[in-house]
C-alpha cells in the first residue's frame, strides 16, 4: 500500500483524460457481422430444405388424384398411374432398418462395452481406429459389397428360389455393418462417462466385471445408449446407396425380407437419377417422399438429443 499510495493521484488524472468506454470499431463489427452471417447459413439450409420439400410436396398434394388419405393408406406407389400410397416405400424402409438394427444394436453395443470396460488402453488404441475406418468407408462401397457378396451368400444359404436377386435382407444386413461403428462409438462415449466410483462400488460388493458392466454401467449410461441407437435408426432411414443398389428398383408392398422392395431413399435416387421433367408428377412426388423422410429422421434426431440432454443432467 505504501508503495502504491503516491501513484494513486496519477491514476485519477489519467481517468480524466482517457475514456474507458468501448470504442466503436468498424472493422470488428464488420467481422462479427460476417461471422454471424456464416453461422446463420446453417439456419438458412434448414429453412431451405423444409421450404423446398414443402412447396414441391404441396404441388404434389394439390394434384387432383392425390389425397392425404390415399397417401397414407393406399398400398401401391405409382404416381403417374394415380396410385399414391406411400406405404410400400415406408414398409421397405422400416424392414431394411429393422434388419440393420438387429445387427448393429447387439454388435455395436457389445463392442462398446468391451472397448470401455474390458480393453486395455493399448488395445483400445488399436481397436478404435479400426472402427473409425469402418465408419469412414463410403456407403456406395457397402452397396457394392451387398450386391457382390451378401446377396450371393444369402442365395447360397436360403436357396436361389427363395431369395430374389434384389432383396431387403441383403441391404439390411450390410447396412447393419455400416451402422455398427456409429452405435459403438456413441455408446462407448456414454459408457466412458459413467463415473469410476460406480464401478468400484460394484466390484467392492463382489460383482464380476460382466455383472458390473451389464447391471451397473449400462443402466447408468442407458440414455446415452438410447441416443446412439436412435441415431443409428435415423441413419438407416436416410441411407441411400446400399438400398439403391441392393434392395430393389420398384415399390413393393411386402414384409418378406427376401423379396425386392424399394425404400424411400432408393426411390428418390432412382427417379431423380433418370431424365426428369420438372412438370411431371414424378418430380413433385419425390419431394413428398423426401418431406416424409425428413420428418421421420428429424423426429428421431430430436428424441436422441433429448435423451442426451437428460443423460447429461444425471452427472
Amino acid at each position, binding site marked *: 500500500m505504501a508503495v502504491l499510495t503516491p501513484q494513486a493521484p496519477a491514476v485519477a488524472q489519467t481517468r480524466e483524460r482517457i475514456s474507458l468506454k468501448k470504442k466503436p470499431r468498424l472493422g*470488428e463489427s464488420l467481422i*462479427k457481422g460476417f461471422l*454471424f452471417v*456464416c*453461422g446463420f*447459413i446453417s439456419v438458412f*439450409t*434448414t429453412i431451405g*430444405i423444409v421450404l*423446398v*420439400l414443402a412447396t414441391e410436396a404441396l404441388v404434389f398434394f394439390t394434384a387432383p388424384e392425390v389425397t392425404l388419405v390415399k397417401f397414407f393408406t393406399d398400398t401401391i406407389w405409382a404416381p403417374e398411374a394415380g396410385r399414391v400410397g406411400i406405404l410400400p416405400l415406408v414398409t421397405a424402409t422400416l424392414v431394411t432398418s429393422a434388419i440393420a438394427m438387429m445387427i448393429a444394436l447387439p*454388435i455395436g453395443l*457389445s463392442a462398446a462395452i*468391451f*472397448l470401455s470396460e*474390458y480393453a486395455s488402453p493399448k488395445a483400445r488404441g488399436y*481397436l478404435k*481406429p*479400426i472402427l*473409425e*475406418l*469402418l465408419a*469412414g*468407408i*463410403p*456407403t*456406395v*462401397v457397402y*452397396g457394392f*459389397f451387398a450386391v*457382390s457378396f451378401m446377396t450371393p451368400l444369402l442365395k447360397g444359404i436360403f436357396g436361389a428360389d427363395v431369395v430374389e436377386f434384389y432383396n431387403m435382407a441383403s441391404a439390411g444386413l450390410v447396412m447393419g*455393418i455400416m451402422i*455398427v*461403428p456409429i452405435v459403438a462409438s456413441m455408446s462407448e462415449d456414454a459408457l466412458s462417462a459413467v463415473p469410476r466410483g460406480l464401478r468400484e462400488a*460394484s466390484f467392492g*460388493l463382489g460383482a*464380476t466385471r*460382466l*455383472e458390473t458392466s*451389464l*447391471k*451397473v454401467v449400462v*443402466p*447408468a449410461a442407458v440414455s446415452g445408449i438410447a441416443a446412439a441407437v436412435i*441415431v443409428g435408426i435415423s441413419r438407416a432411414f*436416410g441411407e*441411400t*446407396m446400399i438400398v*439403391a443398389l441392393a434392395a430393389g428398383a420398384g415399390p413393393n408392398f411386402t414384409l418378406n425380407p427376401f423379396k425386392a422392395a424399394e425404400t424411400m431413399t432408393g426411390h428418390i435416387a432412382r427417379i*431423380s*437419377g433418370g431424365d426428369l421433367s420438372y412438370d411431371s408428377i414424378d418430380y413433385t412426388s419425390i*419431394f413428398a417422399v*423426401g418431406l416424409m423422410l*425428413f420428418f421421420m*429422421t*428429424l423426429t428421431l*434426431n*430430436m428424441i*436422441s*438429443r433429448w435423451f442426451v440432454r437428460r443423460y447429461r443432467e444425471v452427472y
Partner: protein
Amino acid sequence: MAATTTSIPAQPIEIGADPSVRRRQRIAGFGRAGLFLSLIIAIIALIVLLLDITNKIGGMVVYGYKIDPLTIVPSIPLEELTEPELLQIAKDNVPPDRQAAMPEEMGMPLDEMSKDDLINTIYNETPNPDTLTARPLETLADQELVAVLDNNITDARFNQLNSEQPFETRSREELIELIESEVLLESVVKTWPLFESLFSRPAIEEQIRRDFPDSDSEFRWWLTPQFILNDLTTRPETTGIRTAILGSILMVMTTIAIAVPVGVAAGIYLEEFAGKSRLNSIIQTNIYNLSGVPSILYGMLGLAIFVRALGALTSGAAFGIPDPPPNGRTIISASLTMALLILPLIIINTQEAIKAVPQSLRDGSLALGATKWQTVWNHVLPVAAPGMLTGIILGTARAIGETAPLIVVGAAAYITSDPRGPFSSFTVLPMQIYSWASLPGETFRNIAAAAIVVLLVIVILFNLTAIILRNRLRKSL
C-alpha cells in the same frame, strides 16, 4: 441407480463355499468372450469387405470376339490356288458324309475332280467358303494390318488413332491389339475371381480348354495404370476413370473452398462471439439437427435451388460462358450442395477445437489491450488450427465418398469429356462405382471393384490422417 436395486442375497454366505460364485464367474467368462466376439465380428466384416473387393480386381479371363476375325482379313481367291491345294481344302472342310456321297451325286470322288468342280463343291458344301483361305491376322504384314484397320473402322477414328501415334511407328503386336479392340470388339466373355485364379489356376485352365477351346485367355488385372488414365467408354475392357477422378478433384476442391471459410467462421462466431441469446441457441441446435439430416435431402435442396431455380447462374450462362451446358447440373451446383452437407461437420469440429484452447490465452491477449478479433485471429486460431484441420480432413473425406446427393443433383452416369471448370457437366468416382455396380455383367463388377480400390485408398488416407492428427493432439493437450 440400478446397482442399488440389484440386491445381494440376504442369507449368510460362507466364503469360498458358495456354489453360485463359480457359476457367476463362469458366466462372466462367457460374457467377456461374447463381447470380444462381437468386436471380432465387426473386424471380420471389414476384412471380408476388403477381400471381396480385392477378389474382383484381377483374375483369369476368357476373351471372345463379337466379329469373326476370318471375315475381316484378306483371303486368296480360290481360283488362284493350285489343284492339290484345293483338294486339301475340300478334304479338310467338306463334311465326311458329304464327301462319301460325292461319287453318287457328282459321279466321281473328290480326288478325281477337276479344278472347277472342286471350287464348285467347296462353294456348295462348306458353310463359309470365303474364309477358308483367309490368312490369320498373325501372318499379315504390317502394311496389310493397317489396311485391315482402315477398311473396317470409320475414317475419323482411323485418323484419330493415327494422330495419337502414327501407324508406321507402331509395332506388329500393337497393331494386332488395335484390330482386336477396334474392329473385332474383343471382349471378356467369362471371368474368374482373383483368389481362385491364383490358387486353382490349373483347374481353371482345364475348364477354359474344355469350354472355350479357340479363345484367348489370360490372367489380367482390372486395376491398371491405363484404367486410371483412360477415358470413360462403354466397354469395361478399355474404360478408364480419368474423367471421374478429375471430376471428383474439381468438385471437392470447390466444395472445400466454399465450406471451409463459412464453416470455420460459423464455428468462431458460435464459440467466441455468440452470447447466450435465444437466436444463438437456435443456431446451435439447428447445426446438430442438420448433421442428422439424410444426405439425399441435401441433394433435393440442391436440385430445387441450385440446379433448377438458379440454373442460369450455375450453368454459367449468366456469366457469358461460351457453350454453356443446357442446365444447372454442373460442378458448381454439386459443390454448393456438398458444401452445405459437410458444413455441420466442419462447424462442430471447429467449435471443439476452439473450446480446447485454454482461457488464459484469451485473457492474456485481452489484458494487453488486443481487441476481441485480434485475440481470436492471433492467439486462438493458431492454437486451434490442428483441431480444425481434423474437421476439414474428415469433411473432405466425406465429400469424396458421398454419392446420394450427387445422383439427385445430376452427376452424369456416362460422360466422355473431362470437366473444364466449375460450369461443366461432370461425373465423380463414387457415381461411376454406383452406375457400374448397378449394371448386370461380371466385367462391370470388376471395374467397379477397381474404382472402389482407388476411392478407398484416397478416403482411407484422408481418414487415417485425421485419426493420427487427433490422437497426437490429445496427447499434446
